[in-house]
């Protein structure tokens, strides 16, 4: 209760949405950690789902390009996280740990899917759904058009590059967090990010 009071005062004085969001997330992360230490894994899962369901669903849907499949995989992500709760070593933030699981699940799903279908057919399906999900935008360089093009081109990228760009710019994970998830150096993450951005720009220019 004391913590919630401090949180409310901070929100009232700062009036900053991002600060509020981050403070709330840190509070929930603390709840998750203490539930894990106490061995109350069900409570930890409840808070985990409540805090991260939208961002995980968004990540999975955009990784896989299909809403229904993305939602299913997001469920699998939380179930996998539930099983892994006793082994959460708290060396990283809850967010980093969860997105490591989400990335792994999404990449595995994509690998399984590619085994069953031809790549170009997969890309066509994904692009078609991406277009269907977004309202058609007029030609030109307005933000909505750009958004659609980015979304379409994103799904033509290598899945690892796609995951990297989404983790950094959509989910907002830090470069250090991504390095921890991938098990590579920070400099390597920067290099891969720069390459992924270049590839995405090339795809967009090619598609245009």
């Amino acid at each position, binding site marked *: 209760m004391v913590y919630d009071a401090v949180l409310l005062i901070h929100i009232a004085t700062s009036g900053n949405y991002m600060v509020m969001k981050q403070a709330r997330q840190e509070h929930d992360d603390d709840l998750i950690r203490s539930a894990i*230490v106490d*061995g109350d*894994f*069900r409570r930890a*899962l*409840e808070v985990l*789902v*409540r805090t991260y*369901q*939208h*961002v*995980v*669903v*968004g*990540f999975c*849907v*955009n990784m896989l390009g299909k*809403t229904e499949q*993305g*939602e299913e995989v*997001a*469920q699998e992500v*939380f*179930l996998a996280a*539930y*099983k*892994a*709760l*006793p*082994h959460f*070593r*708290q*060396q990283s933030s809850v967010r980093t740990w969860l997105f490591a699981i989400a990335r792994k699940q999404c990449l595995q799903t994509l690998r399984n899917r590619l085994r069953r279908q031809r790549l170009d057919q997969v890309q066509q399906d994904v692009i078609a759904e991406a277009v269907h*999900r*977004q309202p058609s935008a007029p030609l030109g360089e307005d*933000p909505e058009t*750009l*958004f659609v093009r*980015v*979304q379409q081109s*994103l799904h033509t990228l290598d899945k690892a590059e796609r995951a990297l*760009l*989404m983790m950094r*710019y*959509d*989910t*907002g994970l830090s470069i250090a967090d991504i390095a921890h998830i991938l098990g590579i150096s920070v*400099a390597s993450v*920067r*290099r891969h*990010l*720069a390459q992924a*951005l*270049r590839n*995405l*720009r090339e795809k*967009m220019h090619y598609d245009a």
Partner: protein
Amino acid sequence: MTPEELKRQEDSARDIIDALARLSRHTQAPPHFAATVMAQAEQSPPPHRGLRAWFRLWLQWPASPGLHLATVAFVILALCGAVPQYTAWINAYRLDVPSEAIHEAQVQERLWHKNFACATQLDHNSHNYAAIAGERVSVVVWTCPSGDVLVTLESPDQRSRERYVWLELSHHRTAQGFLMPWVRQAFAEDLRPGTPLLTAQAARVLCQKWLPNRMIKRRVQLANGQCRDEIINPRDGTVVERRGAPCDPGC
């Protein structure tokens, strides 16, 4: 790649990055999502914290880098501080003695090396030799030019020589000069007042050599003329083996 180089790339693709940042905002979890996940979790067996996970939980590195550094420093300090103990254990294993007896074992072995030639010359006819016998123990003393003294403790019937002990002394003294005050004091219960020195505790070393297993082989001629080989552990002075031998200096 440096942070500045990445920033330049990002600045040139700022519009694309802004679009990427909006990806998930258009997507929300369906209303039933949380309930579905909890229902599925309910159907699966609850996660179990095994022994390894418990162990890891209580040994987790602290999250703060400062505490992490302090913990690492502390562990390194503790490990380094225990090096003398590790050395003691290794030496105890190597010398085959209890860890608390390592120092004495090393001293005894060193004195055997130092006075090896002198010990080979042990002869009851020498003025460096003296013996005294009590009810339960006989003490034989052999002094060396270095000042060190080899004390042999043996059972009175000479059927078993029990122990060789080197004493490291600063200057040479005669066997009798050493034996009378010191030994009588040390073995006061076994040596009645007035017990004479015995020269008939005859013993003569015919030959002596180091064995490959760091033991000493010694051939001794006794008062009755018989000879015997003794295998001595120089670290604790015990005679680990004795057997009859011909009376020739062929160790």
